[in-house]
């Protein structure tokens, strides 16, 4: 089916998320929508899928104008979408999820789950998905959940399939499998819109690339273009994809983790007998697909979680850190950049200055007796805003009003200004623009060069390879292996799937 978008405009208040976007996708074509976080890709696709109503412009399928009041209309017209955050009901089975909204019923009006199962099996077999229709979705690995999403779309005869950042949660191998699936679907005549910000994937699978920046189409490109050219188009200026790093001069062991195990909220072992060391002046990257225990590991290092009783120890500079309190860990010399800045890093209603003093509210330099030392706070805030290039009008601006990149710089500034021994940076550049990514990467490397120990937790292999001195790969709560930074991408990919070197 041919998809055409003409002059789509979508505003949220004063923000123009999509500004007269035109796009044509031919039948059987894989079209990549490339753009930075916040460029408006997802908004555009939500308009296409009927979740948002466009303020102007029209959607055409096979040259006929469509009006979608909701996702139901879009689906009926043949548009299927695999969302970045899966739209599956965790407590339903695969079959129930696939037929939801389009349920087969039998003579007395009851659900016909037999037909539903057959539908799942038929599509699953056709593309070799290997999905059990009776499995509960919450028990499935994310890669399989994604296939369920694809089956869901295909079972509704989707002729246009939109994949929104589909590889964010996949191992490199699963990504390759997904690309294979995309090629097969395209061969069968499905038009595919593939949304991503990862250049390598675009180059591997797309037929044509449309680049979006700040809500506008800024150009089309062929996948044969070089990565730096695509990056320049995406960001709007020259980008240095490499991080300059001096060779490392490692010192003594700063952090030593021995046989730590942690339970998650569901009382399952999220971290399972993990041991490693980090030395002064090195960056240890913890790689792995999201949800393999990295979050819990970071939180136990900070004292936010307790490890299983008697499971092991964490020592900083040779001193064992008991489960006393988070403040105890912070004062022992740990800085922490959390993976979700809006949830754990900032109070978005607080001003930038107030956010700077969040973890130092009880003592010098921010407090004087029981009072806040406002003069000192303003002086420090001004200095940090300048040093960390936070783009804001004043230190009194609420943190929530800043862009993602600037919010992250506020967190980074707070953590790095404390003068610590160990920096734990968890997904430090998630949802951040390229300019800020470059800046944050430089600062992390500067910390290492200044002789601090750094733990970088990242699910982005590119980031890991750019920054790490050594790489530990986590899979299902265990460390599969710790390898040096020269390890090949393919090898790391295998380790991320649990195959030890």
């Amino acid at each position, binding site marked *: 089916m041919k998809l055409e978008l003409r002059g789509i405009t979508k505003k949220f208040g004063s923000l123009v998320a999509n500004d007269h976007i035109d796009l044509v996708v031919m039948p059987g074509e894989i079209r990549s929508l490339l753009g930075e976080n916040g460029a408006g890709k997802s908004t555009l696709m*939500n308009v296409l*899928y009927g*979740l*948002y109503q466009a303020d102007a412009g029209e959607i055409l399928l096979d040259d006929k104008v469509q009006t979608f009041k*909701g*996702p*139901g*209309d879009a*689906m*009926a017209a043949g548009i299927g*979408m695999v*969302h970045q955050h*899966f*739209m*599956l*009901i*965790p*407590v*339903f089975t695969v079959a*129930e999820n696939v*037929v*939801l*909204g*389009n*349920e087969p*019923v039998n003579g007395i*009006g*009851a*659900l016909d789950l037999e037909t539903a199962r057959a539908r799942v099996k038929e599509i699953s077999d056709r593309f070799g998905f290997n999905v059990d229709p009776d499995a509960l979705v919450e*028990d499935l690995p994310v890669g399989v959940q994604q296939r369920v999403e694809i089956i*869901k779309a295909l079972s509704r005869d989707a002729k246009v399939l939109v994949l929104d950042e589909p590889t964010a949660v996949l191992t490199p191998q699963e990504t390759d499998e997904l690309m294979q699936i995309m090629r097969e679907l395209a061969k069968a005549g499905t038009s595919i819109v593939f949304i991503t910000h990862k250049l390598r994937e675009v180059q591997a699978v797309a037929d044509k690339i449309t680049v979006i920046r700040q809500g506008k189409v800024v150009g089309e490109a062929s996948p044969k273009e070089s990565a730096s050219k695509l990056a320049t188009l995406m960001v709007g200026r020259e980008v240095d994809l490499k991080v300059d790093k001096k060779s490392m001069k490692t010192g003594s062991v700063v952090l030593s983790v021995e046989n730590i195990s942690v*339970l998650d909220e*569901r*009382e*399952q*072992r999220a971290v*399972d007998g993990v041991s490693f060391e980090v030395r002064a002046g090195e960056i240890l990257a913890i790689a792995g697909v999201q949800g393999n225990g990295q979050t819990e590991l970071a939180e136990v290092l900070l004292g936010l979680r307790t490890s*299983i009783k008697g499971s092991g120890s964490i020592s900083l500079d040779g001193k064992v850190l008991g489960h006393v309190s988070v403040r105890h860990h912070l004062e022992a010399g740990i800085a922490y950049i959390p993976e979700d800045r809006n949830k754990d890093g900032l109070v978005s209603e607080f001003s930038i200055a107030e956010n700077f003093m969040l973890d130092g509210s009880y003592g010098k330099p921010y407090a004087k007796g029981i009072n806040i030392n406002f003069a000192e706070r303003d002086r420090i805030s001004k200095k940090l805003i300048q040093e960390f290039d936070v783009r804001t009008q004043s230190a009194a601006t609420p943190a929530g009003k800043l862009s993602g990149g600037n919010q992250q710089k506020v967190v980074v500034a707070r953590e790095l200004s404390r003068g610590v021994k160990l920096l734990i940076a968890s997904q430090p550049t998630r949802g951040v623009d390229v300019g800020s990514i470059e800046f944050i990467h430089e600062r992390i490397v500067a910390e290492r060069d200044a002789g601090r120990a750094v733990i970088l937790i990242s699910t982005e292999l590119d980031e890991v390879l750019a920054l790490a001195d050594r790489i530990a790969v986590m*899979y*299902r709560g*265990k460390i*599969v292996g710790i390898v040096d930074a020269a390890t090949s991408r393919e090898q790391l990919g*295998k380790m991320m799937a*649990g*195959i*030890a*070197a």
Partner: protein
Amino acid sequence: MAKVEVTPGMFSKSEVAPSWKTPIVLAFFAVLVLVSFGFLGKPGNVDYSLSNKGDIFAVPDFVISSVGINIGLGIAMLVIAGISAALTLQKRKTPLWLTLIAGLAGAFGLLGWLASGKQVPVSFILGSAVVLAVPIILGALGGLMSERVGVVNIAIEGQLLTGAFMASVVGTITHNLYFGALAAMIASAILSMALASLAIKYLVDQIIIGVLINVLVVGITNFLYSQWLSVAGEQVNFPGTFDVISIPYLSALPVIGPAFFSARITVYLTFVLVPLVWFILFRTKLGLRARAVGEHPTAADTVGINVGRTRFWWVTSGGAIAGLGGAALTIGNVGAFGREMSGGLGFIALAVVILGRWQPFYVAASALLFGFAIILRVWANGVAPGIPTDFITMVPYLVTLIAVAGFAGKVRAPAASGQPYIKG
């Protein structure tokens, strides 16, 4: 290359052994029955009367020494507690039916202790428990239907009260109790519509609306009662009750016949509604969609389900059912409206929804437990006046404790319960 060893079930099985709560609670009650009701119990025989006079299949009464039966039951309960402890040691959960058997044995022992030297009218107690449980069951079904789609309904109390009031007044004025029941359902449904639209459309906090509705209904009915019903009671608050319908053959069965099959239409409607709600919720597409809306509204929206509309109609129909529960209070039992006559049953219904894990059959069973507890209090006062009423009043809570211990484990509310759905 070697695959990292992943122990089987490592990611699915709980690390933590099942809690010792169940065996401990079971053992506690076993000892209570054995010692307090058995060894230290009251001498004398107890007469478990299993059939009413005039029953076709008269079953002889079961007469036994009160101390004897309680020692027997206590030992049996100790055995069950032992089995439960053994299962826990093996990191296995105690099955629900075992806990239920222990609970029934305990209740049987309690009856025998209370009535030593007297008669225990088993089918009367069962029948009354059912009648008393009906408003709780229906109220809880209404609450369940609302929570399953993600709207917390704490206005059950207000809905019961509205239903009770409307059924009585409309039933009296029209001289037709069916109109009364219908009016109760409609009025309560309208109340639910207010709750639903405020919660869904205007995103008002659901707990706050619920509390307000409860307070509002108490105020309105109290006002009308004192200004109108108590003045002109004969004309507006004298509906009488539905006739007792005995189902041929079934009502002649011993014990359960008179208890379950010789009742008013409100009881029979409850017998129909519980499986009906279950069937719709778990076997039809309407139910699948409703549960999807309560678990993950955004996902439901992306497959073309109208979240707001689904929530609205489920909350509204739940309200109608709760209204019927209110009608069961007046025209299904007492025969007239009294001040604040729902007396907290709506809040018990709320607890019952959770105790029954948002499952219609479990909810009905939990409500029966409360019905039993209420009738026990009433009956025990008459049969054993020496026992402090305070102790008897504790019984419902003890019963709840056993039940909670039995149900202990994975209790999971609908994921989106209480959360408004805001579209981007």
